C-alpha cells in the first residue's frame, strides 16, 4: 500500500484522504520511507524534516476529523525548493554562504501551505541561488535524474523535479526565473508551471532576478499543479508586484481541458523556438504533440517572434544585473557565513570580500561580475538599459502573437537530460538550455511544461504552452488536454516508464 501511495497523484491522494482510506500520517510516513530508500542516490533533498512533517500530518488528520477548515489538498505532503524561506528549517539557496542559516520567518507561500495543512517533507536541492540549468552548481553536490542517475535533472530546480519524478513527494514548489521549473520538468518527465509574473507571492523567495522570479508548482499531473497553484497563489500585500486581482479558476480549467476537446482554440507554433539547436527527438515529439492537438479540434497557426532571437542575450544582462544587487546582502555581517581574510587587517570591507569569495560558487561569481559590470557607470545604457528595451520588443512580439493565437507552444528545452559534467566547461552552452523558456520570464506571461514523450535516447521531452499574462487558465486547459490525449495513447503515465530506482541500488 505504501508503495502504491507514493505513485498516486496529489488529487488522487486527496480523494483517499477525503474518503478516509488513508491518513496524512500514513501518507507522510510512506513518503519519508521512499525518501530514505532512494534519496541516497537521487539526492533531491538538502534537508528532510521527518519530525516536523509527521507532526504537521497529525495535525492535518485532527483537522479533518474535526471538520475544521479542510481544503482539497489538506494532508498531502509537499517538498519545497531551498530558495524559499521556511521558519525553523535551514534554508541555503544551495549555497555555502547560507549553510546552516535558519530563517526567522516564513515565505507567504509557505504560510499558505501551512495554513492549509500540507506537511512539508523538506527542502530540495538547486543550483546555487537558482543560477543554473542542471543543479550541478549546488554547493552541496548535484541531484541526479531518476530516469538516468548519470544525467542531470535540469535546473535550477532539479531537486524538486527529481523528488516528484522519483515519487519522493507528490507535490513540490519550485521557482522559475528563466526556466528553472519548466526545464527540469521537461527533462524529468514531470509537470512544471511558471505563473503570470505576480501570480504567486515572491515574499520569502530568496531573490535572484526580481523582475523575472516566480514560484510555481512542480507535480506529476497538470491537475495537481492547478490545485497547488490555486492554494499558494493570489494577491499578497507584502509583495508590491503581486497581482491585485483573484486568480482565474485553474483546477476547473485543467478538468475541462482533460475532456480533450480543443475546438475553437487557436494554437500558435513559434517559428524561432524550433529548428537547429533542438535535438531530433525533441522536435519529433513536439510536432507529434502539435498534431495531437490539431486532432482534438485546435487550429494550428505559425507565429513569428523575431525578437526572441535576442531574448537570451537580454536575459543574461537583466538577470545578472538584478542578481548582483540582490546578492549584495550576503556579506557575513548579519547572517550566514563569515570568513576573515587570511592575512592583513580585518576590516568590514575585507571580511565581506573574503566571505563572498569563499562562500559563492563559480557560476554565482560569474553572474555577479557580469551583472555589476552591466550596471557600471558608463556601461548602463549599452548593456542593462538596452536589454530592458529588448524586453519591450519581446512583449510586443508576444502581444502580436496572441492576437493570432490563444496559446503559443514550443518544445520546453532544446535537449533531453545531458550527462552530469558535460557542459560545465562551457557556460554559453549551459545558457542555451533556457532559450525556449526565457522569453516568458522577460514578458511575464505564464507557461507550463507537460511531459510529451521520450526522445530517441529514451529520455523525457517536454511540451511548453504559453498564454497571455493573467490567462493562466489557458495553459492548464491546453496542458491538461495534451496530457489526457497522450496518456490515452500511452495507456498510462510517462513516468510509469521510468526505471525503478530500487533496482538500481
Amino acid at each position, binding site marked *: 500500500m505504501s508503495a502504491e501511495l507514493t505513485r498516486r497523484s496529489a488529487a488522487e491522494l486527496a480523494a483517499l484522504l477525503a474518503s478516509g482510506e488513508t491518513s496524512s500520517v500514513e501518507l507522510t510516513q510512506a513518503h519519508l520511507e521512499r525518501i530514505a530508500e532512494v534519496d541516497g542516490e537521487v539526492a533531491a533533498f538538502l534537508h528532510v524534516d521527518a519530525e516536523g512533517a509527521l507532526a504537521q500530518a497529525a495535525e492535518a488528520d485532527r483537522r479533518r476529523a474535526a471538520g475544521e477548515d479542510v481544503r482539497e489538498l489538506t494532508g498531502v505532503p509537499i517538498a519545497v525548493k531551498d530558495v524559499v524561506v521556511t521558519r525553523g528549517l535551514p534554508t541555503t539557496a544551495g549555497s555555502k554562504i547560507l549553510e546552516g542559516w535558519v530563517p526567522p520567518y516564513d515565505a507567504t507561500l509557505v504560510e499558505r501551505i501551512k495554513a492549509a495543512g500540507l506537511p512539508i517533507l523538506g527542502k530540495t536541492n538547486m543550483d546555487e541561488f537558482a543560477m543554473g540549468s542542471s543543479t550541478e552548481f549546488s554547493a552541496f553536490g548535484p541531484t541526479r535524474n531518476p530516469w538516468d542517475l548519470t544525467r542531470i535533472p535540469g535546473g535550477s530546480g532539479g531537486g524538486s523535479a527529481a523528488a516528484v519524478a522519483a515519487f519522493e513527494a507528490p507535490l513540490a514548489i519550485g521557482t522559475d526565473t528563466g526556466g528553472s521549473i519548466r526545464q527540469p520538468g521537461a527533462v524529468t518527465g514531470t509537470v512544471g508551471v511558471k505563473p503570470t509574473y505576480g501570480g504567486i507571492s515572491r515574499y520569502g523567495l530568496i531573490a535572484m532576478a526580481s523582475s523575472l522570479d516566480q514560484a510555481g508548482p512542480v507535480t506529476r499531473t497538470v491537475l495537481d499543479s492547478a490545485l497547488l497553484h490555486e492554494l499558494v497563489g493570489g494577491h499578497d500585500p507584502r509583495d*508590491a508586484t503581486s497581482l491585485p486581482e483573484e486568480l482565474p479558476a485553474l483546477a476547473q480549467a485543467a478538468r475541462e481541458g482533460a475532456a480533450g476537446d480543443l475546438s475553437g482554440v487557436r494554437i500558435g507554433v513559434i517559428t524561432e523556438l524550433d529548428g537547429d539547436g533542438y535535438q531530433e527527438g525533441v522536435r519529433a515529439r513536439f510536432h507529434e504533440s502539435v498534431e495531437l492537438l490539431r486532432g482534438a479540434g485546435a487550429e494550428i497557426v505559425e507565429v513569428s517572434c523575431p525578437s526572441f532571437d535576442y531574448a537570451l542575450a537580454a536575459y543574461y544582462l537583466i538577470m545578472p544585473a538584478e542578481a548582483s544587487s540582490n546578492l549584495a546582502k550576503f556579506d557575513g555581517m548579519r547572517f550566514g557565513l563569515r570568513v576573515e581574510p587570511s592575512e592583513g587587517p580585518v576590516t568590514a570591507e575585507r571580511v565581506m570580500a573574503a566571505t563572498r569569495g569563499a562562500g559563492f560558487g563559480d557560476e554565482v561569481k560569474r553572474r555577479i561580475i557580469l551583472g555589476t559590470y552591466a550596471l557600471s557607470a558608463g556601461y548602463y545604457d549599452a548593456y542593462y538599459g538596452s536589454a530592458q528595451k529588448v524586453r519591450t520588443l519581446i512583449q510586443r512580439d508576444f502581444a502580436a502573437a496572441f492576437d493570432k493565437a490563444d496559446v503559443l507552444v514550443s518544445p520546453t528545452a532544446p535537449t533531453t537530460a545531458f550527462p552530469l559534467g558535460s557542459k560545465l566547461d562551457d557556460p554559453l552552452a549551459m545558457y542555451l538550455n533556457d532559450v525556449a523558456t526565457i522569453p516568458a520570464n522577460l514578458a511575464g506571461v505564464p507557461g507550463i511544461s507537460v511531459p510529451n514523450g521520450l526522445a530517441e535516447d529514451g529520455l523525457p521531452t517536454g511540451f511548453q504552452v504559453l498564454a497571455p499574462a493573467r490567462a493562466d487558465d489557458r495553459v492548464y486547459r491546453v496542458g491538461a488536454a495534451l496530457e489526457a490525449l497522450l496518456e490515452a495513447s500511452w495507456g498510462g503515465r510517462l513516468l510509469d516508464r521510468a526505471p525503478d530506482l530500487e533496482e538500481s541500488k
Partner: protein
Amino acid sequence: MTTTTTDLVPFEEATARYDTVLGIEVHVELGTRSKMFCPAPAVFGEEANTSVSPVSLGLPGALPVVNRSAVEFAIRIGLALNCQIAETCRFARKNYFYPDVPKNYQISQFDEPIAFDGWLDVELEDGSVFRVEIERAHLEEDAGKNTHVGGSTGRIHGAEYSLVDYNRAGIPLVEIVTRPIEGAGERAPEVARAYVQTLRDLFRALEVSEARMERGNVRADINVSLRPTPESPLGTRTETKNVNSFRSIERAVRFEVSRQAAVLDAGGSITQETRHFHEDTGQTTSGRVKSDADDYRYFPEPDLVPIAPSREWVEEIRASLPELPAARRRRLQGEWGFTDLEMRDVVNSGAIDILLATVEAGAAPAAARKWWMGELARTANEQGLALEELAVTPAQVAELQGLVDSGRINDKLARQVLAGVLAGEGSPEEVVVSRGLEVVSDDGPLLAAIDEALAAQPDIAEKIRGGNLGPVGAIIGAVMKATRGQADAGRVRELVLERVKG
C-alpha cells in the same frame, strides 16, 4: 604627531576676491508611524534592534512595500517648496556596501523623483529675502546606526570594531536638493543657515517631522565652491558632512570659503571630495577618498511599482496644507500692526509663538511685544535662558498688562510685579497683593503728599499759577517718591493743578 595647520584666507577677503556658490542637501526624517518600506514601528531611542522586520533587516527573501503616508508627507513638502509633483515617479536602487545598509543597497529615487523644480524664499536677519531654487525632493530610506568601538588611534588588529543597530534602518527620509545657490556673496554663511532653519520651520508647520537637528531628524550636507567671478564657470565643489547645528552650518561655510580661497591663491586646485566638519575646531577635514563611491549603479527598483499620485490626491493634500510660516508671519504682522523692523525683531528672537499666546490671552500686540522684547528679553539674556524658559507665562504677561490697563498698577510698578512673578512669588495679582504694589486710588494720601511737596517749595505754586507748567513734573516726582511709585501720575497731575489753582 604633528598637525598641519590649514592655510586660510580671512573670510571677508576671500569673498571679496572669489564668488561663492553653495549647494545644500537636506535630509529630513519623516514622522510616520511605520517605516518607509515595511511595517516595523518607526521609533527613536529604543533598545537596539527592537524595531526591525525581515525587510528592514535586509533578510533574504524580504520585499519592500511603499508607505502611503510617507508619500503624502513628501508631497506636502514638495507643495510647500513650490515644486511640481511628478505625474509618475519611481524608486531606484543605489548600490553600495556598508554594514549599516542592510541590503547593501539603499532604495531611493534617481531620475524620477516625487517633486522637482521648486523654490523657497528665505528671510534673512535684515529682512531681505533670498530665493533658493530647489532642484528636487525625493523619498528614500535611512540606514542603521554604527557605534564605533575601540581606540581611535592605532590600528591594532582586532582592537576596533563596530556595533550596528538597525532600528533606524528603513525610516523614511525626504532628501531636498538645491540648485547651485548663487549671488549670496559674503552672506553665504547666513543664507545657508537661514535656508536650513526655514526648512526646519516648514517641516514642523507641515507636521511631517519633529525636525530636531540635534536629534538627527534634519541633516544638512553643505557643498561649497569658489570661482573668480560670477560669470566664470562653476568651480570644483567639496561636500561637507557632519554639520549638526545651524551655527555649524555657518561656520562650515565660512571655513570652506577661507580654505578654498587659500588653496586657489596658492595656485592649487580643489579636490572634489567629501569633508567632515569638526564642532570643536570649526574646521573641515578631508574624508577618506572612496574610489568606487560614485559608482552606485543605479537601476529602477524591480520590487516596487511606480507611484503615480493622482492630481485629485495632490489637490486634496494642497488644500489640507496648514498656513506656512512665511505666510503666517505676514498675516500676524498685519494683524498686530507691527512695522517691518518690529516684526523682524520678533522673528529673529524666535518670539512669534510666545507673542501669539500672549495676545490670545488678552493682551494687545504692542503690549505683548513691549514686555517680551523689552524687559523679559533683557532678563532672559542676563540669565542665559530662552524666552520660553523664563518663569513667567504668556497668560501671566497678559494678566500683568491687564492690571496696567485697568489702572491698578502703573508701568513702573508692573516691572516690580514682573520681578516678583519671575521670582516665583505667584501670579501678577498675587504679587500685587502680597507686595502691596497697587496704585494708590484714594485721593487723600495723594493730596497729603501734594501739600507736603508744595509746602516744601512755596514758590512753585506761584509759578504754576503763572502759567508755567514745567515745575508740575517736580511735584509729581516728589509725590511718586513719597508714595513709593504707587501713584497714578496722571491723577497726581490733575490734583496738583486743582490744588494750586485752587
